């Protein structure tokens, strides 16, 4: 086993080695190396006990064991799909895990190429030629898109329009990103679970800077008016930004061909399991905005042997060079999650992605239809095609139904007094029968 010390198990210094090093430096003790005035020195203890590796694994297993075992029919911005073992195994290789930002490209070609492949696959899915690698999550990517809009030539105004129904949390993050500007955020209406285009038309004007929409929407509905919304934005020199999802893009119309200027989303629905909201911010945009893009970009070039090679490029946009005039403050990003997502997408391939996306449509329809047969339940509430999730109305109190479902081992979203929302993927497909049965009992 690793040598036990009185200190850290991860400092490799044998006592005689420490002594020799201290002598080489010319001091008696490590304490002499600290140039800290007494007045601010800390001479107490933290009261944190040192535990062994095994004790910590048991401790955490015990803690996680206190989470109720529930089958989660949950979505609204965070989704889990089956992660193939090859992703965990190969992405877990320590060269990937323990490297950092590729400031020296010659020694980091492998990771750079993986990120280039990540960018390339999302160029394919979005139809937009510039994809960064990466933002923190969909909410941060949305915030970055809006602040980018404030810097663009040919895009002007001071109003940001967002759907009244959007992935929770995203709007709040957007508000923080825009707090340092004079831009205001206003909601535009929904009608029957998708964009109320007439309502939006009444709101959009010459002062509109940015129009955000989602497809699928937060209700899981597939938005039929993406093109119209983008045209409205374009008519008023506003930036059209779409929030979407990597799986959904396998089936839904290509964003670029619909007139979308920026695509944001949580790309970690491929690559990461459900992980308490941890994500991967997808950010894709048009060539025109290349110099204003936030975050890192990997470009192809050649090396001295004339072979194709990869490097971080256009770094003058970034904070370590441009400081307060940078296109973003981001430094550490979600690169390793991007690697995992790239691997997962490659594993699926085009057939696998289309199949998975189709399954997400079919399963939502199947579960909604089964619930709709239950007396006192309407599902889906909205007349639309759905992806993964949908809203259901219950005659009984939604909260009491959800509580009863938790009692039976299922978690769903409560939207208000009489609306619930459910998300279903291949991971929960086998639990549909059980959920429907529990639903019948809960609403009886």
């Amino acid at each position, binding site marked *: 086993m690793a040598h036990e010390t009185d200190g850290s198990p991860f400092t490799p210094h044998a006592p005689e080695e420490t002594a020799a090093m201290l002598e080489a430096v010319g001091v008696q003790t490590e304490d002499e190396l600290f140039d800290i005035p007494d007045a601010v020195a800390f001479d107490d203890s933290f009261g944190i006990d040192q535990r062994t590796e095994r004790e910590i694994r048991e401790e955490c297993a015990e803690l996680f064991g206190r989470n109720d075992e529930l089958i989660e029919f949950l979505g609204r911005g965070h989704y889990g799909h089956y992660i193939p073992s090859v992703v965990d195994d190969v992405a877990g290789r320590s060269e990937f895990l323990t490297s950092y930002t590729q400031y020296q490209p010659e020694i980091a070609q492998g990771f750079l190429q993986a990120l280039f492949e990540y960018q390339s696959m999302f160029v394919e899915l979005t139809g937009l030629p510039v994809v960064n690698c990466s933002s923190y999550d969909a909410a941060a990517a949305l915030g970055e898109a809006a602040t980018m809009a404030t810097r663009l030539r040919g895009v002007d105004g001071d109003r940001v329009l967002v759907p009244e129904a959007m992935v929770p949390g995203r709007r709040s993050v957007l508000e923080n990103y825009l707090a340092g500007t004079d831009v205001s955020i206003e909601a535009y209406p929904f009608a029957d679970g998708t964009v109320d285009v007439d309502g939006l038309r009444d709101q959009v004007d010459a002062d509109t800077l940015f129009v955000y929409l989602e497809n699928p929407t937060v209700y899981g509905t597939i938005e039929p008016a993406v093109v119209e919304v983008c045209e409205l934005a374009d008519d008023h020199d506003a930036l059209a930004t779409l929030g979407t999802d990597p799986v959904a893009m396998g089936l839904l119309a290509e964003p670029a061909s619909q007139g979308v200027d920026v695509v944001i989303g949580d790309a970690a629905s491929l690559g990461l399991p459900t992980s308490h909201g941890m994500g991967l911010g997808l950010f894709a945009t048009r060539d025109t905005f290349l*110099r204003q893009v936030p975050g890192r970009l990997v470009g192809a070039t050649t090396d001295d042997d004339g072979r194709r090679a990869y490097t971080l*490029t256009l*770094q*003058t946009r970034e904070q370590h*060079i*441009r400081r307060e*005039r940078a296109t973003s403050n981001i430094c550490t990003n979600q690169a390793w999650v991007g690697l995992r997502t790239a691997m997962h997408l490659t594993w699926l391939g085009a057939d696998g992605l289309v199949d998975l996306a189709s399954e997400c449509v079919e399963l939502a329809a199947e579960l909604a239809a089964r619930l709709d047969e239950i007396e006192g339940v309407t599902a889906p509430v909205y007349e639309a095609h759905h992806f993964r999730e949908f809203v259901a109305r219950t005659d009984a109190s939604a909260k009491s139904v959800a509580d009863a479902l938790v009692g039976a081992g299922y978690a769903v979203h409560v939207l208000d007094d009489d609306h619930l929302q459910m998300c279903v993927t291949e991971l929960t497909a086998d639990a549909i029968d059980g959920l429907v049965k529990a639903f019948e009992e809960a609403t009886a």
Partner: protein
Amino acid sequence: MTYEVPEDRRYVATHEWVEDRDGIVRIGITDFAQDELGDIVFVELPQVDDELEAEEAFGVIESIKAVSDLYAPVGGTVTDVNETVMDQPELVNEDPFGDGWMIEIEPTAADAVDELLSAAEYEDQLE
């Protein structure tokens, strides 16, 4: 290291040069400035008819590791922009006083150029 400082034009402390061409002035960056920046990869310039104040930043020039603003030595209206240099930024390195020029301005004040540094004065400043 010695830098080229042609005597047929005027200079400013921020390393731009100005060449009077019959009432229209052409502006670029000096040999010293291109050498300090290293390989230029990007130049952003204003549009024709933009109005510039003297000492106002009118553009941006970038190498892979540095960014620099371009300052207008004199105020006036932009009459021409070197589109070629935007497509081939390496021209700034190769020929800073010739093909690597940036913009042309019709100055607001006719004698503004005369007040700028002479080649000798600029050369002194480089030392």
